[in-house]
């Protein structure tokens, strides 16, 4: 007779999975954030001194105001620019819809500091090519301007493509998923197209509009590269400067302020996506087949799309390519000033090669572990009905509200002080690895979660009834059925981790320079503008190539098997 498995035994494995997931999140999220919170509040006893100092320092107050201004500016402008583009792509027969969609994704994953570099070259008030052209065309008498990238508005402009992408990618599916009958009913009731958009479509879109704008907002709060290059005083920059002064209390307090601001955005975001889910239950299907507006309206959107792609991709990266080919930037567009020397210098530099090896290894290791552990956490949260899973869910989403700079400070504080300084991670591969894992945890968990939610539990139950244990079922049924999502998560994290800057800039050590810290160093004089552009274009091309691979895999996977019923 088969001895029955006792109650205790069957609960053991889920409990182990729960414990692994909880330890993982506690180590990566709870410890650094908790430690820094405590650290910022103590100094021989509980005190708010660090925060008082923060709010009494006019420079930090300005930094906070600047951060908020830029984030709000990006959020608002993202809506103004992104909404028409999203509408055009989702609802009209404009040309180049796939081009615009592709441009959005390219903008989202290509590092923001590349665009900053390009815009400095284009819109620098004195020598920016765009300004020179404007002065020539309009016969302006000034030697400077009219555009000045070294301003808060310049920073907003630089961050805008990222924000627009967030917004666009949130809005397009929402626009497509509205049941056309809702709008048709409005037309039948006597409303015109504009009134219908205003009274029916837009209100239905509100959750998606809000969540897109909030993502743009918190993304802008967290930027490091562009304000660094534009020399603007925002919180991320102040945090790093505090660290350079070795003032950990100030850095911790500023980091906490920054985290709280994006946490507020995150809470609102969660709220609005919940609402979005509630709205989406209407039918729950996609209506992408509908024919959109044609004729003049479509033509107008086509023009808008082309202008946008030109402004955020073709012109800046084209400009960077041109500069990267100059022997001497000072000689400008003159004959004989062209060569591939900068590419040779950059690609031949052993420091660059070392950084490339490190970044690829870091990104690959991070993507792998984040994907695997993301699955474990998602499985525990979605499938195992154990107590405290909401806690795991929340812990896994918090990193989204922790800007890389703030996370790096937290990790520096943790790994420079007892007891964890005993691990000796600071200044090496280990601390960067920990930082990357924490930064991208959410992507792994979220991707697995949404895939698991769509996967009917009956597939797994059929396996259990068919004679497979829980673990075997995961291996033979769950994971193979989720492989598309897992590969996607891996690639996404890899592409995002490869050019990670805001945490790396603080945590890098002598032997652990990453691609982006080397690029920033080259920009900061260690090679110069032209080499930085050559390096930047190489990075851009690599990211683009990875995206193509990802798109090909996604297409192949979706063209093959259908998952779910």
């Amino acid at each position, binding site marked *: 007779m088969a001895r029955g498995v006792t109650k205790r035994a069957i609960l053991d494995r889920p409990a182990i999975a729960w414990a692994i997931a909880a330890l993982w999140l506690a180590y990566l999220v709870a410890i650094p954030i908790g430690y820094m919170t405590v650290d910022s509040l103590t100094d021989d006893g509980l005190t708010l001194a660090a925060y008082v100092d923060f709010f009494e320092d006019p420079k930090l107050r300005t930094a906070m105001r600047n951060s908020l201004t830029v984030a709000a500016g990006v959020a608002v402008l993202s809506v103004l620019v992104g909404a028409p583009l999203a509408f055009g792509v989702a609802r009209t027969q404009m040309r180049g819809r796939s081009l615009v969609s592709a441009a959005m994704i390219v903008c989202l994953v290509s590092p923001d500091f590349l665009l900053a570099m390009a815009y400095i070259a284009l819109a620098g008030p*004195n*020598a920016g090519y765009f300004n020179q052209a404007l002065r020539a065309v309009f016969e302006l008498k000034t030697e400077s301007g009219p555009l000045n990238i070294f301003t808060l508005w310049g920073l907003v402009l630089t961050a805008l493509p990222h924000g627009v992408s967030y917004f666009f990618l949130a809005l397009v599916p929402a626009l497509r998923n509205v049941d056309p009958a809702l709008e048709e009913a409005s037309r039948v009731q006597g409303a015109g197209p504009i009134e219908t958009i205003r009274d029916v479509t837009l209100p239905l879109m509100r959750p998606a509009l809000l969540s897109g704008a909030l993502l743009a907002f918190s993304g802008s709060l967290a930027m490091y590269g562009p304000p660094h290059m534009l020399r603007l005083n925002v919180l991320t920059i102040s945090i790093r*400067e505090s660290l350079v002064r070795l003032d950990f209390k100030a850095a911790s307090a500023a980091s906490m302020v920054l985290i709280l601001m994006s946490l507020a955005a995150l809470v609102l975001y969660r709220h609005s996506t919940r609402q979005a889910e509630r709205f989406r239950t209407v039918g729950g299907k996609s209506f992408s087949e509908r024919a959109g507006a044609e004729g003049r309206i479509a033509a107008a959107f086509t023009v808008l799309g082309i202008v946008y792609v030109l402004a955020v991709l073709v012109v800046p990266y084209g400009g960077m390519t041109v500069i990267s080919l100059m022997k001497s*930037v000072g000689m400008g567009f003159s004959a004989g000033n062209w060569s591939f020397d900068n590419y040779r210098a950059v690609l031949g530099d052993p420091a660059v090669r070392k950084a490339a090896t490190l970044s*690829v290894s870091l990104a690959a290791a991070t993507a792998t572990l984040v994907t695997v552990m993301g699955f474990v956490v998602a499985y525990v949260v979605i499938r195992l009905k154990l107590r405290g899973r909401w806690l795991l869910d929340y812990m896994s989403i918090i990193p989204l509200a922790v800007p890389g700079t703030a996370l790096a400070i937290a990790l520096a504080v943790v790994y420079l002080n007892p007891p964890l300084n005993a691990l000796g991670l600071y200044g090496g591969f280990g601390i960067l690895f920990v930082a990357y894992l924490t930064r991208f945890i959410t992507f792994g968990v979220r991707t697995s979660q949404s895939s698991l939610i769509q996967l009917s539990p009956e597939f797994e139950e059929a396996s259990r009834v068919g004679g497979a244990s829980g673990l075997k079922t995961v291996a033979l049924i769950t994971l193979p059925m989720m492989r598309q999502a897992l590969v996607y998560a891996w690639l996404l994290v890899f592409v995002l981790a490869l050019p990670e800057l805001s945490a790396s800039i603080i945590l890098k050590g*002598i032997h652990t320079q990453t691609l982006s810290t080397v690029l920033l160093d080259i920009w900061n004089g260690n090679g110069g*503008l032209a080499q930085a552009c050559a390096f930047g274009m190489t990075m851009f091309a690599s990211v683009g190539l990875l995206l193509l691979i990802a798109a090909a895999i996604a297409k192949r996977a979706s063209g093959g098997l259908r998952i779910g019923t």
Partner: protein
Amino acid sequence: MDKKARVRLLAIAFVGALVAQAPAFAQQRLTIYSAYENSQIAPLTKAFEAKNPGVAVDHFRQPGEELLATIELELRARSPKADVVGLNDASIAYLQRRHDAFEPYAAKDVDKARVEMRSLQNVFTPAFVNLYLIHYNTRKISEADVPKSWAELADPKWKNQIAMADPSSSQSVQSFVWFIADHLGKSDPAKFGWDYFKRMGANGVHLESSHGTIRDLTVSGERPIGINLLANAQTAKNRGEPTSNIWPREGVPGELSAFGLLRASKNKELGKMWLDFVISPEGQGLMPASLGGAPVRNDVAYKYPDGSSLDQVKIIPVDSAFISENKRTQARKFHDAVGK
């Protein structure tokens, strides 16, 4: 891609990540932290490696203030990774005072350096003299037009044309700040002192984190005038960029760039070999072509990038002791004055 290929790809990526951590092949390695650009220090390290087969130099560069923070953090984490540090003498003095970080060493030939260049306790070995100058883009500004004095830079004529370094990131600019605010501030308070930086702020001076970036802005014409270091004027010249420099008539602050041997170095013999090399005639002869500064030995011939010779430039030695003790206050006063 089939399943196997994907699994293999993941496996390769993961193994790659682990392998990347493995130490590089065994060799004697000297680790140098400095504020000098890779391309600038390269001729020096290459010559050193050529002279000492089997030795390889790892160089790690950060803007001076950031490098100071890195070193201090490493000392705090008890894992200093450098053998030798290259900074200006004020920063070396600062580290020595706070951490007793350096091991005194009297390099061979150190007595050949000019006496005012030498460290009393041999805490550092002098490498070259770095001077401030007005660096300008010759395609944007004619030689006749270019400002000939520090005072002229505050003229609204040059509004939004000038870049200088930010003491939050740069160590060297402390020398310039001392020179303007304290040195000239005493002799000519009407034109200089902290008010000078207030006027520069109103004149839209652009603050950069490192002098290399300022050089690039001058070269591209974005900021056709840079308050820069001799070393960068030299590299621009070496690259054939359309730039030249002015030695302002008020004189120029001269700071000493030097190397020190870290007490915690596990490679002290190699470190000492480096210090010997830096002060040797060969090392000193390489200074203009590499780090771009003026040699500290009189027995090595030298001309400035604009062709002028050593005696034509009025050099004011900076008060390193004052700077190393007051740099936080100086930085704050500077930011208050510039208003950024």
